[in-house]
């Protein structure tokens, strides 16, 4: 089959570095009336990591899906290794030597790692039976090549997202993929996992693969990529060497204008305490968490992924139980493990995973917006679509949500606009406290700025906001106070003036170069959370 031929190629003459591995020219694709891609072009060379940049809706995903064989373009030409090809499906893309690693890998949890890599093309022995040994040996060989200690014989269930991506990369390699497309691979990874992924990417590059790397994090792009292609509104805007470019250049190319930097500005003095969490503990998850949020204040909860930040938020909102401690909203104690109670008390929660937890993807935009306000919209037990519509139209306008029709399924919106729908859902309830978990994950830069602006606006209107974020620039830009968690405990607290990326990282990782300098000056309502000693 194709794989065999390519293996021969591989042994014979690896493509010289710099040779054009893949070239897509003037690709177009529309879905119904929407032109997702108008003029998409990209050229990948062997031995390079090539960044693809663009805001959500710029056409990146469509381009990726064309390369993956998932979408068939309406026009344009695709050349792989010098040959013009038409990809009729994912299988054709793989046969052409294109491997795609999605942000959230799609593995078979019940099958072994090796089988996940070789499904449908397992090595065979006599009688067309699967040769388990050869399969595992081949998988092991690939992991050795990538320098990662994964056991091919274990089942995929329970693998971290980072390891799942490694399995996908291994799958692509086992297919002798010369072109590897990584669609926002780092979005769900912790810093150390990103570092490991980058090692793997460098290995791939050294072995002559062409890697297309998509990320919204510019610093990652400068770290790992050599060239960049920027897209805007479905069109190719520029392709250039990254050397000599600045982040501002890229942002300008993406947005098509100077991004106005909204400054934090001075906020009115925060008002009364709206959220008071005291000594909250959930065994084995987080310990002794005390914090307050005042009206008009944005408190950031920083720390590494896995330090227990989201878990605290979930416990406060009542999704998870907690073993000890108390939560008060506007002075009134909140019932344990009762999201309904939290909502009634005026708490809103924008979860980390908007697809799974924040939205009902098959429901319309307006149904999603109205979801948390159904009690208010109800007339004699029925929800009138017209009142739903009015509410949604109002909020869509206020948040500048871009949509086709309010009755379209919310899954048709871009990630940034989906996040705005989640926000609209809670804002329409006029919450006193809003908990937002990674509010801008996977959102393009312009929408991100809008979300930030929106949070600041809300704070000015007197909402107390608890924001969990892994992006330190965002933390520093938006928040009044920064709390840092480490291994389930509050490690430090900084006032806005004292917070720096270095200090937050030091507190979050436990490299306490300076003992939480800013904590004493926080406007904190009495919770001096000193560096706590480890048990």
């Amino acid at each position, binding site marked *: 089959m194709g794989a065999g031929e390519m293996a021969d190629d591989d042994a014979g003459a690896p493509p010289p570095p710099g040779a054009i591995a893949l070239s897509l020219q003037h690709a177009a694709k529309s879905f119904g009336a929407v032109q997702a891609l108008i003029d998409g072009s990209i050229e990948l060379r062997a031995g390079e990591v090539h960044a693809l940049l663009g805001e959500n809706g710029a056409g990146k995903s469509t381009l990726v899906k064309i390369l*993956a064989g*998932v979408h068939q373009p309406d026009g344009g030409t695709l050349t792989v290794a010098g040959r013009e090809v038409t990809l009729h*499906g*994912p*299988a054709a893309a*793989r046969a052409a030597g294109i491997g795609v690693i999605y942000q959230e890998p*799609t*593995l*078979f*949890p*019940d*099958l*072994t790692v090796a*089988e996940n890599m070789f*499904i*449908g*093309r*397992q090595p*065979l022995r006599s009688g*067309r*039976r*699967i040769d*388990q*040994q050869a399969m*595992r*040996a081949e998988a*092991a*060989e690939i*992991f*050795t090549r990538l320098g990662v*200690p*994964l*056991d091919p*014989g*274990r*089942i995929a*269930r*329970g*693998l*971290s997202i*980072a*390891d799942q991506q490694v399995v996908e990369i291994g799958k692509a390699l086992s297919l002798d993929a010369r072109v590897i497309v990584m669609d926002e691979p780092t979005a769900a990874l912790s810093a*150390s*996992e990103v570092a490991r992924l980058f090692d793997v990417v460098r290995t791939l590059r050294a072995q002559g693969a062409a890697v297309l790397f998509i990320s919204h994090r510019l610093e990652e792009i400068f770290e790992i990529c050599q060239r960049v292609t920027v897209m805007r509104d479905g069109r190719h805007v520029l392709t250039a060497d990254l050397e000599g470019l600045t982040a501002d250049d890229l942002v300008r190319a993406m947005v098509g204008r100077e991004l106005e930097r909204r400054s934090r500005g001075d906020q009115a003095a925060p008002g009364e305490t709206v959220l008071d969490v005291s000594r909250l503990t959930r065994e084995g998850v987080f310990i002794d968490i005390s914090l307050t949020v005042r009206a008009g204040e944005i408190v950031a909860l920083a720390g590494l992924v*896995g330090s227990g930040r989201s878990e605290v938020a979930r416990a406060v909102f009542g999704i998870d139980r907690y073993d000890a401690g108390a939560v008060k909203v506007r002075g009134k104690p909140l019932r344990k493990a009762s999201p309904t109670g939290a909502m009634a008390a005026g708490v809103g929660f924008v979860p980390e995973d908007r697809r799974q937890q924040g939205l009902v993807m098959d429901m319309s935009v307006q149904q999603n917006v109205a979801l948390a306000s159904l009690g208010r919209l109800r007339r004699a037990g029925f929800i009138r679509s017209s009142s739903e519509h009015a509410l949604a139209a109002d909020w869509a306008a206020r948040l500048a949500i871009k949509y086709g029709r309010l009755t379209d399924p919310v899954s048709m919106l871009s990630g940034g606009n989906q996040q705005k729908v989640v926000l609209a859902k809670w804002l329409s309830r006029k919450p006193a406290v809003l908990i937002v978990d990674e509010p801008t994950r996977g959102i393009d830069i312009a929408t991100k700025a809008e979300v930030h602006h929106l949070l600041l606006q809300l704070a000015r209107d007197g909402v107390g906001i608890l924001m969990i974020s892994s992006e330190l620039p965002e933390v520093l830009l938006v928040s009044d106070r920064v709390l840092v968690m480490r291994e389930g405990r509050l490690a430090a607290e900084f006032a806005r003036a004292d917070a720096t990326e270095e200090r937050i990282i030091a507190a979050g990782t436990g490299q306490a170069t300076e003992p939480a300098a800013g904590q004493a000056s926080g406007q904190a309502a009495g919770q001096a959370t000193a560096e706590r000693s480890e048990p």
Partner: protein
Amino acid sequence: MTAEVLRREPPQAPADASSRGLAERVFRIRESGIVVVLALFIAVTAGLQHRFLSASNIQFVLVNTVIFALLALGETMVVVARHVDLSVGSVLGMSAYLSANLFGSHPGIPLPVVFLVGLGIGLGWGIVNGLLVAAGRVPSLVVTLASLYIIRGIDILIVGGGMVTANTLPSAFTDIPKETVLGIPYVAIVVAVVVAAGAYYLRSFRSGRDLYAIGSNPDAAKLAGIPIGRRVFTAFALSGAIAGVAGVLWAAQYGTVDSTAGTGYELTVVTAVVVGGVAIFGGSGSAVGAALGALLLATINSALYVLGISSFWDQAIAGFLLIFAITLDRVISVRLTEALRIRSSRRAA
């Protein structure tokens, strides 16, 4: 086999090998669990009533098991792909009547032809189910629930008030379940071989693994380029064909066939499959486990009969086992995920 695999492990893998060991241990325990329950049941019943271990009763249990084990093999193929086939009882009934009726309408008809006719009837209905599920994209629960009623309805129209009685059947046919090799019914051996072959097919052939992949993550299966429609169609066609053959065996075993033959079997079969460790949402489990599940249910059925306990308890116990099995699988799956996750993260740290 495990040793060979281990030998080919890369040297840096040992830390993670424990994860696999854990997963494999759990699955082995899952199937040996059925054997333990089975042994307990047999021991207790035999202790109370020696007749239970008589040659004739063992034979009876095995022949009973044979029909359900066959049906469970087909059902396993469907269930691992995250579907369900509820029509097997009705298919069995129709095949049983039409094939047994052949002896009356075509005296002297060779037995293999009768089996082929049964197989053909089942295959036909399997193809109808498969087409509706795979091409029509109708949920299999709905499709096979509908065909359960439709096939039974047609069966009743054909049979009317009549029935095939044992005295119209040639003794060569009705003797099939009675022939033994070393005291073990000949059909039990044949079906054991068929089930083993089916389990081997599911485990060691690409198209078999595809079924597990489809059940484990349908979206990923699509992205992996697995011909989902074709595989699911084949699974339903095979399940139907197997149910057809089981129908012929049923006629040979019971002799008297009316329009109610096989009524309610679909639920017993699904129970056997799930009790046998096939995940109801697909992705894991084996045909051997499913056959063991069938054996367990048949043993319980017989034990209650031998002990003179109301057959009401038979169904209650089957229901209890079903809940127990599903809960157990759920708990194991959650715990296993958790354990594997913790081990992975420890390794990363």
